[in-house]
């Protein structure tokens, strides 16, 4: 049973959280972090649900911030769910109206769990510079999702320009399995790739990042090709004695072939949002490899700008 509070304050919300906890016999999971989720608007139900599921692996207090700056009245409404109601963690949905919408941090700060990490997640169009955002500034880790909005290439360039340690993007997270398979494929190859191709449906930010990663790590030119998807569909690396190819056309099962080997099937599923967030929350330190990819993008921009 949730508690609805209208025209409320952070201290009343804190009281409601401890009341809910008492009503459940005082049992809480030992929360390991506070997760702030900025949805702005009402239509993010599925994203909130997916995020709540991640509390299974990362017991956390989830604060969903919905800002309504165009409302005429200024005020705070909240709905408080105890652990176990919408997932294993606690969930507070905050509606900030009027002028208060511009001061969300004043509501969030008193609700952070003491002395534990804070993660901010923008499931929609996140800010170009997450670490400058008032809510982003509160957190060790800032998760955005280039795939959720439009103009992915433009926003990728903006993220690269503003990168700060702790920034990360789900477009990068989506690549982990691909990168793992490609690294494994090169484990038993003894020559150095001379060039590569990454194919994906148009506007796919993950494909850009993958091309940057391959190009930066291998020091080779990597071409981009467009395909009909879904998502990433193919990576080819040319070798002196053949080609490593990883091809996935159905978003689930890929085929890997490399010189000297028969083609082998390998499961390469497009993972759902809660799996991606789970991976993100496992590590809260800066992702150096992601930072290097963004640095490559910055360099490319500078070079192209100079020409």
């Amino acid at each position, binding site marked *: 049973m949730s508690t609805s509070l209208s025209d409320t304050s952070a201290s009343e919300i804190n009281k409601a959280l401890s009341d809910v906890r008492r009503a459940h016999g005082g049992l809480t999971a030992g929360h390991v972090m506070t997760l702030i989720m900025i949805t702005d608007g009402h239509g993010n139900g599925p994203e909130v649900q997916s995020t709540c599921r991640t509390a299974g692996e990362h017991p956390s207090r989830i604060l969903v911030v919905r800002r309504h700056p165009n409302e005429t009245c200024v005020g705070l409404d909240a709905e408080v769910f105890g652990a176990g109601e919408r997932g294993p963690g606690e969930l507070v949905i905050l509606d900030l109206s009027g002028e208060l919408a511009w001061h969300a941090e004043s509501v969030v700060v008193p609700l952070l769990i003491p002395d534990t990490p804070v993660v901010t997640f923008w499931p929609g169009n996140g800010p170009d510079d997450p670490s400058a955002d008032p809510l982003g500034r509160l957190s060790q880790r800032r998760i955005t999702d280039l795939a959720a909005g439009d103009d992915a290439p433009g926003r990728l360039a903006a993220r690269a320009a503003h990168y700060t340690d702790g920034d990360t993007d789900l477009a990068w997270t989506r690549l982990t399995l691909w990168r793992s398979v490609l690294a494994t494929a*090169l484990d038993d190859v003894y020559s150095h790739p001379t060039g590569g191709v990454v194919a994906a449906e148009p506007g796919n930010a993950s494909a850009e990042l993958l091309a940057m990663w391959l190009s930066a790590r291998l020091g080779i030119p990597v071409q981009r090709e467009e395909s009909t998807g879904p998502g990433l569909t193919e990576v080819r690396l040319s070798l002196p004695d053949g080609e490593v190819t990883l091809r996935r056309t159905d978003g*689930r099962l890929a085929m890997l072939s490399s010189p000297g080997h028969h083609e082998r099937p390998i499961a390469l599923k497009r993972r759902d949002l809660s799996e991606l967030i789970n991976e993100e929350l496992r590590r809260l330190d800066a992702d150096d490899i992601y930072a290097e990819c963004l640095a490559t993008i910055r360099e490319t921009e500078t070079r192209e700008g100079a020409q």
Partner: protein
Amino acid sequence: MSNPLRDPRDKRLPRVAGPCGMVLFGVTGDLAQKKVMPAIYDLANRGLLPPGFSLVGYARRDWANEDFAQVVHDAVREHARTGFREEVWSQLADGFRFVPGDFADDNAFEQLCKTVSELDESRGTAGNRAFYLSIPPKFFPDVVRQLKKHGLADPGSPDASGRVPWRRVVVEKPFGSDLTTARELNRLLEEVFPPHSVFRIDHYLGKETVQNILAMRFANQFFEPIWNRAYIDHVQITMAEDIGIGSRAGYYDGIGAARDVLQNHLLQLLALIAMEEPVSFKADDLRAEKEKVLSAIRLPADLATATARGRYAAGWQGGEKVIGYLDEHAIPADSRTETYAAVKLELDTRRWAGVPFYLRTGKRLGRRVTEVALVFSRVPHLPFEATAVEELGQNALVFRIQPDEGVTLRFGSKVPATSMEVRDVNMDFDYGDSFAESSPEAYERLILDMLLGEPPLFPRSREVELSWEMLDPIEAFWATQGPPEDYPAGTWGPDSGDELLRRDGRTWRRP
């Protein structure tokens, strides 16, 4: 040449085993179907198996590859921890092969040779193979000799880059039934496989909560200073099962609780709790400390007062009427096998001198629970009225291994009221059920470590021998005594078990 796509700073990339295949002996067994096959699927589902990973089943069954695949499929469907996904299945199923034959059949082993070579070719397993012996120990000699005879265990020839393919063998407990048989087994295995290629699975060591003992002890500042005889009164290690022997009569009778559980799981837990800080968590350093502490175990002089054994009699357990051990199917009426064993051990080290370690295990006990409890000494002086601390016990730190994985700290706290009254309270850290859900199962962790060739979690032959050196005298003493003392099913064991602590002025925790 190092792989430029790998970077130690790239912590997202999982440790994926290199190209390899596994030959599973005993595919019809309980363990293979409930643990090994599901663990392989779960590893594949988590993206931790190499492309082309292959599984060869070997058993005396008239099966084709498809029949074997069906058996694995059913096992995975029923017991895997991660959801079933068709594409993961297709990745794996492509590499399933079955070789029919018994363990003495030379033709069948020739067929096995051909099969693994064919897989090297078609699936790219690169000659790396693990032989998983999920079979009763009496068949080990046959299988191991056959592997040698047919060259399956021979080190392979180096490939283009000079890498020599590996061969590994995996065995499950029991590692012998006494020191002599354990040594025979070690000799047998190590005649054919070098010691670093023998992986002994004690699945307890694969559990997150067991590995957390090391994290708790050595990553924190405030436990280690009190981790010694100055602060700790005694240690209790309990592994209780609520089930009876079920269908394991053939294995269990004549073995008993001490050999089945105490010699391996409980002594490994003792080693992790009592050992000194290893120089690093590398296999050799870790094992050196474990061996050191195991070799410091001293049995009390009088085994009659320092051990207890029992046997469950008919009774009520958790609301169910259950039969006694002697009434179980296929148990002889004159059986002297114990289903409950408790011992008191001491360690001859500066850290632990005078601190008894009480170990107990049993079947049909009060509930299913495994825990390690460090019970602290009482404070030297209590500045309270005697009536205020009547209900204050000893402080305790408890590692809950299973179920409800976590850590409990027990200490005294003032009861809220106007008078001063101190009572014991518990502070709990829970991994939480759902938290543990996504953590890999012990078998997944161990099979992956074996494929990666990382041995820290596997006991070495010396550890096994040391633990038999501890148990053999106790078994010999018990053999001179009458049958074990009966205890009603669903209770916490025989009176002699409680008496073991009462004699020292202590009591078992009710776990």
